[in-house]
């Protein structure tokens, strides 16, 4: 099983300026995929999650185009080929 994670501009310093990272062994959930991302891009997880391990207040994460706050948050299940997008929430209005 593999998934892709889109990385916002402000976090690309952790991914060598790469906009999309492919994770070949993401586990079953968004949370496990972010742990796998941490192996590829050390220190990035702490930018997305707060000290309690929850999604930061001003970050939106989408799994297959749905905001995970409408799904199961970090427990949102993944399937083979799932697309994850991490996007700053501070926009619009």
């Amino acid at each position, binding site marked *: 099983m593999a998934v892709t994670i889109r990385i916002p501009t402000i976090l690309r310093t952790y991914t060598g300026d790469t906009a999309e990272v492919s994770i070949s062994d993401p586990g079953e959930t968004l949370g496990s995929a972010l742990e796998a991302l941490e192996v590829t891009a050390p220190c990035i997880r702490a930018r*997305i999650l707060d000290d309690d391990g929850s999604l930061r207040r001003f970050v939106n994460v989408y799994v297959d185009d749905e905001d995970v706050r409408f799904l199961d948050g970090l427990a949102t299940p993944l399937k083979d080929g799932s697309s994850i997008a991490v996007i700053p929430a501070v*926009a*619009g209005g």
Partner: protein
Amino acid sequence: MTLLTDPAAPTACPSDAAPAPDFGNATGLVCRECGAHYPLGAAYACVECFGPLEVSYDLSGVTREQIEAGPASLWRYAPLLPVAAYAGTEPNLQPGMTKLVRADNLGAALGMTAPLWIKDDSGNPTHSFKDRVVAVAQSAARRLGLTTLACASTGNLANAVAAAAARAGMGSVVVIPSDLEAGKTVTTATYDGTLLAVKGNYDDVNRLCSELIGDPVTETWGFVNVNLRPYYAEGSKTLGYEVAEQLGWRTPQQVVIPVASGSLLTKVDKAWRELTGLGIIAESPYRVFGAQADGCSPVARAFADGLDVIRPVKPDTIAKSLAIGNPADGPYALDAVRRTGGAVASVSDADIVAAIRLLARSEGIFAETAGGVTLATFQRLLATGQASRDAETVLLNTGDGLKTIDAVSGVVGPTAVIDPRVDQVHEVLAPR
């Protein structure tokens, strides 16, 4: 011949370096969450924590007299904005200084014992308060060398960006949900920039624009409400400054503000705190109230539930200009409301239509749906006792009813359709 230059000297001397962009009294960008500092630039989210960046200033020395000597537009407040002193002389729509209307008829209808005012921002060049924020963002785009104005919009911003870009000879790329009112899409398209109608809601549009940041195709674009958002948002302060100045340099006791992203509410509050801090107005308590539609009320729900986290919703309301299900400034709007002893409430679409009609027949002001939300919410707050009839109140009407005419077209119409004959006029007007 004597060689005057030192071969060992650096090839670029200080005078060759590009001058720092002139942002007036602004000194930098600061993260509202963690306090991290950044230089002034096209940045909007904190690298450390994703928190929103806000402009910081050195406002010392700004005086009431300095403002009063300025032009009759929002540029009179240039010393309080992230703009160069000359920003108002560059091509722009010259928004601001809209009317503050004393609403005695409406006040009587609502049983008010204190003065009621409508700050009617439909008087701006493209008929909404968005001309204010775009003017400041456009100035920032110039300073940063960005040549195309772009935005994610629920409609009013689309008008403002397309028109401001046209006035200045800049390109524009406006991105909207495809189901917006014709009064907003047709007007935007007429300004003849690029208009992208997205199959999705505003939150989908917003997400798309956020993902475009960093894409090579947008290298010279200033998304006014994404990568220029810190500057753009500051433009909303001018509504607060104007209300204070038009009241004779003081704040009202209550203000009711429509809430979409929540930015406008926080900036009106910020404006009044700034004026107070500078000694331009005397400190006086005021209460800030937020207004939403039931079909998109994430901030009102969080307020009612006592939460400081906003749970996003899927919007479903006729108040499309407020249909932001994931409001970026929602937490800060809650902070301002709670700090001042106000409240956030929501109203039904039927209440919105009724309020649009009440405002029109009592004061001759035809508000868009957001204005209906504001008045209907004030009525609800009065009914629940959360707002007071004894406190001087300002309601913000942020847009023009001609843009959302569908909201009322099904419930109003001619009194009668007659032949051009006097007797038929008499018949219609006869007492029944």
